[in-house]
C-alpha cells in the first residue's frame, strides 16, 4: 500500500513538474499563432523525452553516476568540456527565464512590477536549495504544479468541437498566412521546450540523490511513461486554450498574462487564481531544477562531491557553483530583458544543445560492462536512433531558421 502510494506520488510530481516557463510560453505562443497545427511536435517531443529520461534514469540507477560524469568519460575531457560549456550556458539561460517567470507570476497575483520580486525570488530559490531535502523539494513543487490542470478544465469548459480539434492535431495544416520557415521555427522551439536537456540532467542526478538502485527501475518507468505524457497533455491543453480564445482575436502571445487569459475567460476568477499558482509552482520548481542542474553538470565533469544528500559543507564547490549561477541569473533578469523573450531564446538554444546530452546517454545505455542485463533493448535502440536523427536535424536547423525568420517575427 505504502509502495503504491509512493508510486502514485511519483507520477503526480512527474506530471506537475513537466511544464516549465518554456512549455508555457512556447505552447501558448504556438497555439495562438498556429492553432493546433503544431501539436504534433509537442507530442513527438514528449515521446523523445520519455525515451531518453527512461534511459538516463536506468543508467543512473545501475551505475550511480550522473549524466555529465558519463559524458566526460565517453567524450573525453576536450569534447566533454565543450559540451559542458554549451550545456551550462543554455541551462543558466533557462534558469534566468524561470526566475523571471516566477517574478511575472507574482506580478500577476499582486500588480506589483515583477522586477521588484526578483531579489526575493532569488533568495527564496537559494534558501530552498540550501536547506530543503531533495524529496521534499521535488514533491512540493511537483504537486503544486498540478494546478496547471486548470488549463485542461478551461479547455473542457470552452467546449470545443472535439472532433475538429482532434482532426487538426492528427492532420496538421500550416496556416496559409504563415511562411513555412516561421512554422518550422516554432516547431523547433516547441521541440526544444518539450525536450529541454536540463530535465535529463536533473532526472538522472535526482535518481542518484534518491539512491535508486536497479530495483527502482520499474518505478522510474511508471513515473516517466505515465507522468510525462500526462504532463505533455497539459502542454497541449495550454496550446488548445490559446488556439480557441486568443487566435480568433488575432492576439499573439508575448506576456505571461496573455497565457493565463483563456483560463479567466473559461473558468473565471478562481480558475485564474489556480492558474497563477500553477505558473508560480511550475517556474519555481523549474528554477530549482535548472539551478541544481548547473551545479550537477559542473561538479560531475570535475568529479567534485555534489548533491543535496550530503551536508552543504561536504559539497562546498557544488553549492558555490549553484550560488554563482543564481547570481548570474538574477543579474540577467535585472537587466530588464523581457523574460518571455529570454524564454524563447532559451528553448531554441536548448534545441541546438540537444545532441550533446542525448548522444552520450544513448551510447552508455548500450555499454554491457556498465549496464549488464539492463542494457538497452532493441526497441529503445531503434527509437533512440530515430530520435537521434531527428534531434540532429533540429539542432542543425535551429540557428539558420532563427536568422531566416528574425526569431519568428
Amino acid at each position: 500500500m505504502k509502495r503504491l502510494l509512493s508510486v502514485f506520488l511519483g507520477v503526480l510530481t512527474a506530471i506537475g513538474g513537466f511544464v516549465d516557463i518554456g512549455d508555457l510560453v512556447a505552447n501558448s505562443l504556438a497555439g495562438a499563432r498556429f492553432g493546433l497545427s503544431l501539436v504534433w511536435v509537442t507530442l513527438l517531443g514528449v515521446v523523445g523525452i520519455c525515451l531518453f529520461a527512461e534511459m538516463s534514469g536506468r543508467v543512473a540507477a545501475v551505475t550511480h553516476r550522473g549524466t555529465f560524469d558519463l559524458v566526460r568519460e565517453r567524450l573525453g575531457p576536450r569534447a566533454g568540456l565543450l559540451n559542458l560549456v554549451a550545456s551550462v550556458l543554455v541551462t543558466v539561460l533557462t534558469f534566468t527565464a524561470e526566475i523571471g517567470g516566477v517574478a511575472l507570476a507574482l506580478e500577476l497575483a499582486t500588480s506589483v512590477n515583477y522586477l521588484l520580486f526578483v531579489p526575493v525570488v532569488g533568495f527564496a530559490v537559494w534558501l530552498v536549495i540550501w536547506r530543503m531535502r531533495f524529496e521534499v523539494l521535488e514533491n512540493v513543487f511537483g504537486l503544486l504544479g498540478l494546478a496547471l490542470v486548470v488549463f485542461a478544465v478551461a479547455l473542457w469548459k470552452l467546449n470545443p468541437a472535439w472532433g475538429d480539434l482532434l482532426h487538426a492535431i492528427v492532420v496538421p495544416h500550416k496556416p496559409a498566412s504563415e511562411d513555412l520557415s516561421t512554422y518550422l521555427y516554432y516547431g523547433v522551439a516547441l521541440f526544444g521546450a518539450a525536450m529541454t536537456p536540463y530535465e535529463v540532467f536533473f532526472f538522472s542526478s535526482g535518481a542518484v540523490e534518491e539512491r535508486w538502485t536497479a530495483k527502482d527501475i520499474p518505478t522510474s518507468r511508471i513515473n516517466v511513461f505515465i507522468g510525462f505524457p500526462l504532463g505533455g497533455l497539459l502542454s497541449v491543453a495550454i496550446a488548445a486554450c490559446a488556439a480557441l480564445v486568443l487566435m480568433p482575436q488575432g492576439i499573439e502571445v508575448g506576456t505571461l498574462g496573455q497565457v493565463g487569459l483563456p483560463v479567466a475567460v473559461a473558468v473565471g476568477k478562481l480558475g485564474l487564481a489556480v492558474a497563477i499558482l500553477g505558473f508560480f509552482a511550475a517556474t519555481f520548481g523549474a528554477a530549482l531544477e535548472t539551478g541544481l542542474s548547473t551545479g550537477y553538470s559542473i561538479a560531475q565533469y570535475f568529479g567534485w562531491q555534489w548533491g543535496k544528500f550530503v551536508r552543504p559543507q561536504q559539497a562546498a564547490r557544488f553549492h558555490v557553483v549553484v550560488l554563482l549561477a543564481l547570481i548570474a541569473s538574477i543579474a540577467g533578469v535585472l537587466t530588464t530583458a523581457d523574460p518571455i523573450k529570454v524564454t524563447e531564446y532559451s528553448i531554441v538554444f536548448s534545441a541546438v544543445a540537444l545532441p550533446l546530452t542525448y548522444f552520450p546517454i544513448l551510447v552508455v545505455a548500450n555499454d554491457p560492462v556498465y549496464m549488464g542485463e539492463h542494457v538497452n533493448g532493441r526497441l529503445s535502440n531503434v527509437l533512440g536512433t530515430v530520435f537521434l536523427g531527428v534531434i540532429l536535424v533540429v539542432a542543425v536547423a535551429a540557428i539558420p531558421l532563427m536568422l531566416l525568420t528574425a526569431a519568428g517575427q
Partner: protein
Amino acid sequence: MTDETFDLRLRLLDRQIVDPDGAMICKVDDVELTPADDGGLVVTALLAGPLALGPRLPGRLGRWTVALARRWSDDPDPAPRRIPFERVTDLGSAVVLDRSRDELGVAGLEDWVRTHVIDRIPGSRHASE
C-alpha cells in the same frame, strides 16, 4: 570487471573516484605509468587536479589551466595530486579508494571554498530538512 583485457582509456581514465562510503573525491584526470621489471607498463598511480587535467585540454585553455594552478600552489615545483594505486580497492563504475578525501589530502580548492565561503553561511553543517 571480468574482461580478460580492458581498455585503460575506457575503463579507468576520466572515471569518478570515491571513498569507501561513496563520497566523491575527484576524477581520474590522468594515470601514471611506470615500466615494470617483467615487461610492459604498469599503472602506479592515479593523477588528479588541474595539473593533471590541464595538459589534456586543448591549446591555450590547457596552458592557462596549468599556469593558474602553478600560481595558486605554494610549492615551487607543483605536481598533480597523486594517489598511489595501492589505495584502490575496486574498479567498477567508480574507482573506490580505502581512504576518505580528508585523509588523502587531495582537495585543495574544496577545502579553500569550504573554509572561506560555505562555512560562513548559516546551516552549512546541517543536513537538509
